[in-house]
């Protein structure tokens, strides 16, 4: 980390498998960097105080609210956003399950939900319904009543386990 003029700080992070070098303000959040500088607008801004989960990304394997993480804290880290889920044009099983189960309505919470679910399944490949609910308890959804989301996560887990 070297100090630059005008208080800019150089950081390097891996986003969806691509190494990015950026000069950021010390107060800039990871959310602002992803949306503003990298134009990865799939990650959403819903509250900016860590309450809604719309900005959830996976940072070194853990689901975090990117509005609460300073970009400089992510220096050297590996970040996965919703844009990084599909591989070579093939949807991730979670994305497919969300579509098939009607887990998407307005879709504003969806990227955050997907990332929370992704982090959960990486740690616990066969979660119980309660464990899924706990894992997404920090992600607000006003549209779906959560039921289809829980079903979708469980279905994606089942599919991954049977293959």
């Amino acid at each position: 980390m070297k100090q630059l003029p005008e208080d800019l700080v150089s950081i390097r992070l891996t986003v969806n498998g691509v190494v990015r070098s950026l000069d950021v303000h010390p107060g800039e959040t990871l959310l602002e960097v992803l949306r503003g500088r990298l134009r990865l607008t799939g990650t959403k801004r819903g509250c900016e105080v860590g309450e809604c989960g719309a900005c959830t990304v996976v940072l070194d394997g853990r689901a975090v609210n990117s509005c609460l993480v300073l970009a400089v804290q992510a220096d050297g880290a590996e970040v996965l956003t919703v844009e990084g889920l599909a591989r070579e044009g093939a949807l991730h099983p979670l994305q497919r399950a969300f579509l098939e189960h009607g887990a998407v309505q307005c879709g504003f919470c969806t990227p955050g939900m997907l990332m929370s679910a992704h982090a959960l399944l990486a740690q616990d490949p066969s979660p119980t319904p309660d464990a899924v609910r706990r894992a997404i308890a920090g992600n607000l959804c006003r549209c779906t009543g959560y039921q289809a989301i829980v079903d979708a996560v469980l279905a994606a887990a089942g599919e991954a386990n049977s293959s």
Partner: protein
Amino acid sequence: MMIGEKDKDRPWLLGRPEPRVDGLGKVTGEARFTDDLDEVGQVWGVVLRAAHPHARIVSLDVEEARLAPGVVAVLTARDIPGNPFVGGVVQDQPVLAGTAGAGGGAGHDLDRVRMLGDGVALVAAETEAQARDALGLIRVGYEPLPVVTDPREALRPESPLVHDRGNLVVHHGVRHGDPAVGFEYAHRVYERAYATPRIEHAYLEPECVIARPVEGGGVEVVGSIQNLFSTRRAVASVLGVPLNRVRIRHAVLGGSFGGKDDVMTVMACRAALLARATGRPVKMVNTREESMLESYKRHPYFLDYRAGVDRDGNLCAMRMDIVADAGAYASMSPFVTYRSVVQAAGPYRCPHVWTDVRAAYTNNPYTGAMRGFGSPQVNFAIECLVDEIAEDQGLDPLTYRRRIVFRDGDVTPTGQRLAGHRVSLDEVLARIGDASGFVDKWWRYRAAREAPAAFRRGIGVACSYRGVSLGAEGVDAAATFVQVQPDGSVIVSSGVTDMGQGAQTAVAQCAAEVLGVPLDRVVFLNTDTSRIPDSGPTVASRGTIMGGSAAADAAAQVRARMLEVAADLLGQPVKNLVIREGLVGTGGAEGSFVPSRLTFADLAGECFRRGVALAALGWFRAPPTSWHEETGQGIAYFTYVYGANVAEVVVDSGTGRVRVEEFWSVHDCGRVVNRLGAEGQVHGGVAMGLGYGLLEEFEVEQGVPKASNFDEYLIPTAMDVPRMHVEFVENPDPAGRLGQKSLGEPTNEIAAPAVVNAIANATGRRIREIPATLEQVLIGRRLTRSGLRGSEVARGGEASCKVRGEEG
């Protein structure tokens, strides 16, 4: 264009759980919400908001702000070229408040702020930070005025006036029979007072627009806008240009629930003003704090109910007096309270019903449309009351309801005979009773009340009937445009907006049903006011019936032309031909289908080569309604939907904590268009209804909101929402082109009373004010705030007894 009976009776695609037509981008992150868009050369627009909930503006100095770094324009009310007021029903809301002499029409003053969310000045700057910094340089001199916050007080003659024309926004009455006569033969009379909270829509996406100046003095606006045509009317009026110079589109919307109407209209007007003033694209985005402060809410209601029951247990008279808090501006209050006055007595036979609903201006955040639209409040009151009457009559609440609910041919309190469709409430109640094991559980849990227990179980029911679409509130027609491409793919656009509820999918599925193509061949375009006729607002759960019926109309026109060509190619008469799953074939009356080698795609190509018009505009006008203002009698809505909810709860006797363990929801919404979408509507509506019953209140003290973000305003999380069981009773309705009706709002209007009735079953305690907080459940009143409000508190009185009547 007629649609063959086979469309209605034997749908091949309707009812299937098809994935959303707009789903893919939402799981990949490619879906573009307004804040994901930027324009080359754009500046940022921000708003200076009021510092007092009620004050006259005596001075306004923006000079310093104009000179601040990066600032491109600073605007006040004086800079508005056209009409400075907006409002869907009453034009009483200033786009910006200003100083005296800044304009304004008769009966309005522009020179004061009436709520904290009001705007006073606009700044556009090169960056958002520069724009926000400049706000601090604007000097506003205020002369504070007395604040009124209780709508019942606002209606007293001595109250401070929020608007010069008086604080009464609207008064609706229903006069059916004569309660004085009815109460004469009442065996028991029940008098109860209920109250419901102000709540926030809490759509996850905060408001956002981008406005771009275009030639001829107009603008193009893209935004998170629910009702594009009302926004267009307002923007044109504020700029003083004709409608065709204003083009409004929506990007992908992150939820609305009735909430992205007026607040978006105001934001679009402000962005349009800045775009005209700067000559550059202007982007405005609310923070969550700004959103909660500025956006309108669901009306808090105070409801006094009086009901008489005869010796046989039938309702013989009802008298209801209801006051709604409109907040600072009328918004949709006149229409919201219309629905309340029509549906206040619930779906029950009663010969003598008088209802009064009044809405009053206060200095609270303004209130407007929210999912349910005046029904959740009255449904809460009537469903709690009927539940209590049932228990008092020695019956379980489900059996009692089945005795008194509307059936085919019954007459509503507005004098409307329910005919032409199946009045299915008894069927709905029977189904939910079986599914939930209601009657047996209700008696068991009631008996268990006698013994002490740390946790008590309870089960509760609520039901409703609901008028479909706008009713006698307004003009009710909608357009859908269907184009078949030469390769057989289809493009649909419609005047109804998808806010996330799935209108695009439902409307596309109606078009695909009639055309005979799989849904994945259809692309749906976001609504654009310059490319589709004014179709009214996407409100009142009218998207599927209105947009879908118009889609069926358009698709039938195109199909008829295509079948002519198919008849020629296949040497078959048109009447034998059917298109299904993208194949053309022959079909019989029993729904049989024998495909030929001709595909829909090949047929489309041949039609194109022969110069056949492969596009059509479909139009659907709702059947007639009527309304007599003085008596409140008439055909209030052209048809109705029916629904019931059952909640099973566990109450912690020590803390008052309520856990909803299981939930059942049964609806007759006519023909189900998309099972996946329909179930999703129910799940989301119920979750929101549970928040209403147990959790949510947007508290405001002396005009100042107490919550500004999701850390203080709590909505249900995945941990708060139970497993939900959803069933549909499908009675196709002749009112919808394909037998479909409405679903979005009925799902949301009866969850709260079902839960509160379940709490009563568990504890024996009737809660008449929601949300049912811990202290409500434990001791039957609020500790955080007095059950009495406003002047009653000021008088220090235990003045009004909330529970009157025999057993108090």
